[in-house]
């Protein structure tokens, strides 16, 4: 019964209990359109969480990705309007590349100067956001100006249904994009040399280096990849909400970090899985959305997210200590 002790199983169990609880308070929770909209809210946070997961497995932390996401999104949308380009693939590629370049800045400082990632990413995040708002502009690009291709792309649905009263609802295809990226990250972490290097780096940097992992390659890979995911998610977000707002995503890093920690990743590094993170993201989004359904005042949202971070990290710390006490038998 060793699998019962796996953190993913525990998280899934808590998640199920929470869902049953919320469903009892308000049965509307179980309606298909609510579940679909929950899944839809998972997409953006989830994609960003995949990047943060890799960084946290390596023992780092990133608070700059919301700035990267918003910069990549706004610049790309501006570029599309400027050139009148109406494709989908190229803009997403551009946004991801931009995010990756910003991420490289993080990697450069973290690797070259051996500086604490938190401080580096505080600096780069502030720089990128300041540059965007101070130099590029502060005006929103509203629906009447947003490129139609982006909106149409984000409107794609996998399942479309009609309610009794004639309104339609459905499950957005962006969920598939999210799942696809999640599988990709899972495969990278599990089956590639660089993925194993990320775990090794988080476990013990010196040991990883002596075992022959190229730390520079690993560090650049994770920060650039996380940046690329953020840039991609940023553009997707603007398509989904039909708006490109250069002030978007403020404070999002806390939600994402909370979700990743909730998913069982440890900031000491070396631990964390894609499945756990996805469950953590779902849990966080569900709790935040359900506060409304459960008729709790929305002003409590920040408190709830904070308490979630504290409890989740406390449990993770407790687990890590117990593991240490038991010896390294995992």
């Amino acid at each position, binding site marked *: 019964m060793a699998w019962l002790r796996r953190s993913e199983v525990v998280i899934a169990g808590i998640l199920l209990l929470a869902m049953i609880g919320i469903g009892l308070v308000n049965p509307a929770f179980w309606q298909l359109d609510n579940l679909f909209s929950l899944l839809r809210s998972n997409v953006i946070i989830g994609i960003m969480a995949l990047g943060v997961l890799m960084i946290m497995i390596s023992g780092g*932390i990133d608070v700059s990705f919301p700035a990267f996401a918003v910069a990549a999104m706004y610049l790309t949308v501006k570029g599309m309007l400027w050139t009148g380009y109406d494709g989908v693939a190229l803009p997403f590629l551009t946004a991801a590349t931009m995010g990756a370049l910003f991420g490289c800045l993080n990697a450069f*400082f973290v690797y*070259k*100067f*051996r*500086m*604490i990632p*938190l*401080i*580096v990413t*505080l*600096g*780069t*995040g*502030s*720089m*990128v*956001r*300041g*540059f*965007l*708002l*101070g*130099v590029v502009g*502060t005006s929103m690009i509203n629906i009447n100006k947003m490129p139609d291709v982006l909106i149409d792309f984000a409107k794609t649905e996998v399942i479309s249904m009609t309610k009794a009263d004639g309104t339609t609802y459905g499950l957005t295809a962006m969920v598939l994009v999210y799942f696809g990226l999640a599988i990709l990250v899972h495969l990278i972490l599990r089956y590639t040399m660089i993925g194993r290097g990320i775990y090794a780096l988080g476990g013990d940097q010196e040991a990883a280096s002596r075992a022959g992992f190229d730390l520079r390659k690993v560090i650049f890979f994770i920060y650039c990849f996380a940046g690329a995911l953020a840039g991609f998610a940023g553009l997707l977000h603007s398509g989904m909400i039909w708006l490109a707002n250069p002030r978007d995503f403020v404070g999002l890093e*806390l939600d994402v*970090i*909370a979700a990743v*920690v909730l998913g069982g990743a440890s*900031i*000491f590094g070396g631990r964390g899985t894609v499945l756990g993170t996805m469950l953590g993201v779902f849990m966080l989004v569900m709790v935040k959305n359900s506060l409304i359904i459960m008729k709790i*005042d929305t*002003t*409590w*949202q*920040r*408190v*709830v*997210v*904070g*308490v*979630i*971070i*504290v409890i989740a*990290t*406390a449990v993770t*710390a*407790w687990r890590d*200590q117990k593991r240490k006490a038991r010896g390294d038998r995992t």
Partner: protein
Amino acid sequence: MINKLDFRAILNRDKNIVQLIVMTVLIFVIMTALSPDKFLRYYNFESITYIFPELGLLSIAMMIAMLTGGIDLSVVGIANLSGILAGILFKKLADETGVADTGLAVVLLGGVVALGTGLVAGALNGLLITKVKITPILATLGTGQVFTGLAIVLTGGPAIVGFPEHWSWVGNGKLLGLATPFVLFVLIAIAVSFILVRTPLGVNLMLIGTNPKAALFAGLKRERMVFYSYMMTGVLASIAGIMLSGRTNAAKSDYGTSYLLQAVLIAVLGGTNPAGGKGRVLGVAIAVIALMLLSSGFQILRFSNHLIDFIWGAFLLLVIAINAYKNRVR
């Protein structure tokens, strides 16, 4: 041999202070050259002495947390919550006569409430970090959310406007012809400096930060010392909150959010090693003055606030690079 090493360490430290002073003078000269008539006015410097103490205290608080290799991301939350709790107390106790004329006794009670908030909040951080063993980054990230969240719940969003006159004096008034916050800052800085250099607590903190393992084997009470250091951080943050609410005559859940990055930057710029073991109040005090001159100069030159954010971020990265370069040479 040991004496020699000590001597070199002292020289190095003072070199750092000398460099900071040179940098401050340079900023002063450049800003004067760029706009002599506006920058050199007495009013400009007077307003700096009112504004910088709150940021200075937050930076000293950050430095104390960094001494043991930690960080405190909840300082701004603590500051705001302290101001708000005191503000609510004044509103509750002064219904008839109006808040402005509240008596000295009530104002002192408000001060106790504010400082108590800082103490309790700091103790909570200390408890989570030393007993529950959550990493400082995540613990304070979570509690920071909780404090800010509580501030939102208590106020419902908008600011609490209107504080007693005695309270405003702390942020606005004059003492011996100088700005009260400035005088308070100097006194507190001297006190903290004394604690760090001359008392067992301070010496222990330095030793723990320099080499946690050696400190453990030497029998230092690590947990208790770290716990005290976070309580100190919390109290300093709440004093900053008193100054902020006194100066602006208002308290709000999202005041001073940009102070977080600036406090980290100033602590690092002031020669604090974020990995622990090194930090001086004098260095932080000079750094905060240097950066206040810089930002007031930029404001006079009519740079947008966003661009100033960009410059803060870039400055932080630059300082990291320079520090890393200096350490390599040595």
